[in-house]
């Protein structure tokens, strides 16, 4: 017996078995083609999304006012605040809390620590004594600007140019408990242990360039 005879014999295979295999041949082919179409479509979506994202980020950077018009009041007065480093970031998307949701400035009422959540809705009718007691109140004409960032930290050390502390809130910039140095030239500095709301205009990995602060006494 040789291979030719075997091949001839295969012509006597049952039709049922042949049809079963043939269905598989066509079924799988269609599935593979469909999978390929899905794969190509997914790749196109990823590329399109990435392109859009990159373009969006470029636009944000191009429109960033960081290097053009950010000046702090303290800079005007003393002029010795170091410029923000080159790798400082400034996020246009950030929306500062409304003034009404900012900590209360009434330092005489309650001197306990407060928890402050950015997501809390501004509520003009909220009782005043619910706000944190602050040592330094922001003048109403110095309402936070649209492009301002905010972090909350606990002060651990007072330095020549400001103070040091660790992050106590959740924000998009630093993880909780991250040690940061705050460069601040305001008149009133916090004391060790104070909770401070820092509004700033520039930052890098470890340093924040504060525009103004709110102090919550321990």
């Amino acid at each position: 017996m040789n291979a030719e005879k075997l091949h001839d014999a295969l012509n006597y295979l049952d039709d049922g078995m042949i049809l079963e295999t043939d269905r598989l041949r066509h079924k799988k082919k269609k599935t593979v083609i469909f999978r390929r179409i899905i794969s190509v479509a997914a790749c196109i979506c990823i590329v399109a999304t990435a392109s859009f994202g990159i373009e969006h980020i470029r636009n944000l950077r191009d429109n960033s006012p960081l290097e053009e018009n950010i000046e702090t009041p303290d800079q005007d007065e003393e002029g010795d605040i170091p410029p923000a480093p080159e790798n400082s970031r400034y996020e246009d998307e950030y929306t500062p809390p409304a003034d009404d949701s900012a900590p209360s400035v009434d330092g005489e009422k309650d001197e306990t620590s407060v928890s402050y959540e950015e997501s809390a809705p501004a509520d003009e009718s909220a009782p005043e004594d619910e706000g944190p007691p602050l040592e330094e109140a922001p003048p109403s004409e110095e309402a936070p600007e649209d492009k301002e960032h905010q972090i909350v930290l606990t002060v651990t050390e007072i330095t020549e140019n400001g103070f040091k502390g660790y992050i106590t809130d959740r924000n998009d910039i630093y993880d909780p408990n991250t040690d940061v140095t705050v460069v601040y030239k305001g008149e009133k500095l916090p004391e060790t242990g104070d909770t401070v709301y820092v509004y700033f205009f520039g930052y890098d990995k470890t340093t924040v360039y504060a525009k103004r602060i709110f102090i919550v006494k321990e």
Partner: protein
Amino acid sequence: MRDEKIVDLYWERNEQAIKHTDEKYGKYLTRIAFNILADTEDSKESVNDTYLAAWNSMPPQRPTALSAYLGKITRQISIDIFRKRNREKRKGSEYAVSYDEISEVLSAGDMTEEQVQARLLGEAINRFLKEQPKEVRNLFIGRYYFLDPLKEAARYCGMSEGKAKSILYRTRILLKEYLQKEGFEI
């Protein structure tokens, strides 16, 4: 058009039967032929011969699975063309000529006997394959009946090429043992 209608056309000796067969199964048959012959022109010739064979065989035949019926015809015609082509290539060699002459003596030109043997062998292979797992059976038929490339057969059976190769090797050994048990001379 449904297979039954096409078969009816053959039985009515309506030439539209060949047109509808070509529309429905032309590509399928061409692929079977091409897997054997690897030549477009020869494949077309094989498929055309298939239509002629179908025309001549229906009636009296009334196949229930027209695709399998036509596929078998195409396969056998293509194999015959392949063998004839190889004989043509060997014409220049005296060894080849003498080999052909000796082969004729050995086979004694008894086509009926050969066909009976082929049928018996085919039935034994049928029994063997029915005992195999579905995955193995499909791979074996895909590779040795449809003569699909190993890579493609592995793909539509949902396995790697290496695994398919290994399964086919084991199946060939098992088939050899089975046929020996059944009394075939291997």
